[in-house]
């Protein structure tokens, strides 16, 4: 059975009242959390130091695991 098409209901609030509601809500409700800011990019020698350290640790881990199971 095909439903009868109903015309859209009109809001009981007037446009001005809706605007007041929106302004009040923006004032009283806590703001939406801001999107994540990844912070200043880490570049140059600092980035390579971090990557070098992590890579060295990973390499040591591999060597340790191989030595352990050989």
């Amino acid at each position: 059975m095909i439903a009868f098409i109903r015309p859209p209901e009109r809001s009981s609030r007037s446009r001005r009242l809706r605007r007041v509601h929106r302004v009040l809500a923006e004032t009283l409700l806590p703001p939406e959390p801001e999107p994540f800011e990844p912070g200043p990019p880490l570049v140059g020698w600092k980035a390579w130091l971090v990557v070098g350290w992590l890579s060295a640790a990973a390499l040591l881990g591999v060597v340790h695991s191989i030595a352990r199971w050989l």
Partner: protein
Amino acid sequence: MLSLLISLLTFVALAVTAFGFGRPLWRWIGSDDDALSAVLFSVGLGLTAVGLIVLGFAAFGVLTSAVLGVTTMLGCCWGLVEIAFWCIPNGEPADRSADESKRFSWASRPVDHWSPPSTWLLAVVLSAAIVAIAASLIDALTPPTAEDAGFVSLETAKRLLVERRLVGPPRLVDVWHGWALAFDGDGVCARLIHWGFGLLFTLASVVMAAPLVGRRWAWIVGGVVALTPAVNRQMGCATDCLAMAAMGALAMTAWWQAVLHGGDARWFVAAGLMTGAAMAVDAAVLALVGGLAVTWAWAFVGWSEQRRSLLLGAAVFGLAALGVALPAGVWRWWGEGLGTTTCGIRWFGLLECSAWVWCEHLGWIGLAALPCAFWVRRLRGLGVVLSVAVIYAVSVMTLTDDVRRLLLVVPLCGTAAVWTIVEMRRLPRRTQWIAAAAVGVMMACQWTDSVVRSFDGPAVALGLEDREAFLLRREPVYQAAAVANRVLRPTARLLSQDVRTFYFNCRVTCEKSLARPLAVDESASETARRLCDSGFTHVLLVDDQSNGARSPLGRVAQNALTLTDYRVRMADGASRHYRLVALR
């Protein structure tokens, strides 16, 4: 297969019992929170309550199977009722917004402010962790042998059950093992209890990290903890370190909530009870109390408006902790110091550990992430967490030489590691990929160390091999124990040269613990007569031929009736000669 099912069912029943005892306590404490933390704290409190109840039975000399059985059955039934109330909807429509507000009540600021981990990362880490936990479960399902570090605890637990009274002040972990042994005498359920502590520790790490890095990243912390090789290995044997770590992690979780996140004062009660339980397991937790006291002092100085509640909270915390720890362990520490592994004060104890020990116990990722804490942005609370980790690690390694006590630091380092991973997005794209690959390799190494192990017992763990056949193959003393259990009367008293006496049903005294050592120049007949006068009826002689060790006790074999005589080749190639003899 039947014994395997019995062990598993017993473990589940004991877990439900712990939940049954703990859930009303947690409700009484009244800290409203999400389901995971409610379950964890309920189980932790329930285990503490059961431990103290069993300890009370032992103190009054009524530790019988019937008493234990009735108590456990009551707790189990109530646990089932609690689970039913938990699961069955009460007919009212679920208020999702209320659930959300409960979840976020963990943090005093919106969590997941940074983008959460991708679903594939979460899936990979958690799948790897589940495989590692399953590998440790196979270990835990094998009957305990002398190679296990936790054999001593099982011996103490068995003595508690045989004597039906306190034989020296036991630790809370011995009581839990004894509780499991009462229903599953093979010791497998006791190992499963310890495996359960590992699970509790892992999930407690998730709850502890959630206010800092958000719930989804906290699951990555849980994965990192589960993949730490030492944690995973300890889950397979019945020792005390994971029980201490699990209770300590719950205590820290409640403490952060009370002190750092301005939680309700009732969190202090939870923190105190959990700290008391951890102290009753291992006195090394006093080092953790020192670290927590520093955070308390920091909050006390910094937040002048909350000083009154902090003072009140500290008093409540101290009373709750002592209320649990006093019945279980204070007199023990008074007499023995900080446990059997105390080795005096070693000012540089932490530095004496080799790098491999560090990697084994803290994990590659946690260790590699520590220096990176200097370049990541400040995360509120992380500095406090790392301060507690440093204070605890330095204190505990100064006072003891047992590196397993460092396990409590693993979730703290894991949280720092995960924050480092979050911050890796600040790196340029190319270096970001290299760093991610390095972290992935470290995680793979940890996974390999945890999972790929010399499995000797999958057949017995899966019920394909008989437990007795496994023990005859693996446990040197088991053959003598099997003979003694068949031949000896229950009233017999055995003097053993081997300290591993778990599988003997009769009362056993080790030669090392004799009040008066045997004289070297005594004749065989004089020694035998002295032993008979002391009440001993049988002797288990062990002749270690690798070092040619001879004891005055060995001479009694000349005039004694030999019940069994066999040689065993040990894993290190040495040969051992076992003789079970009856004194005449």
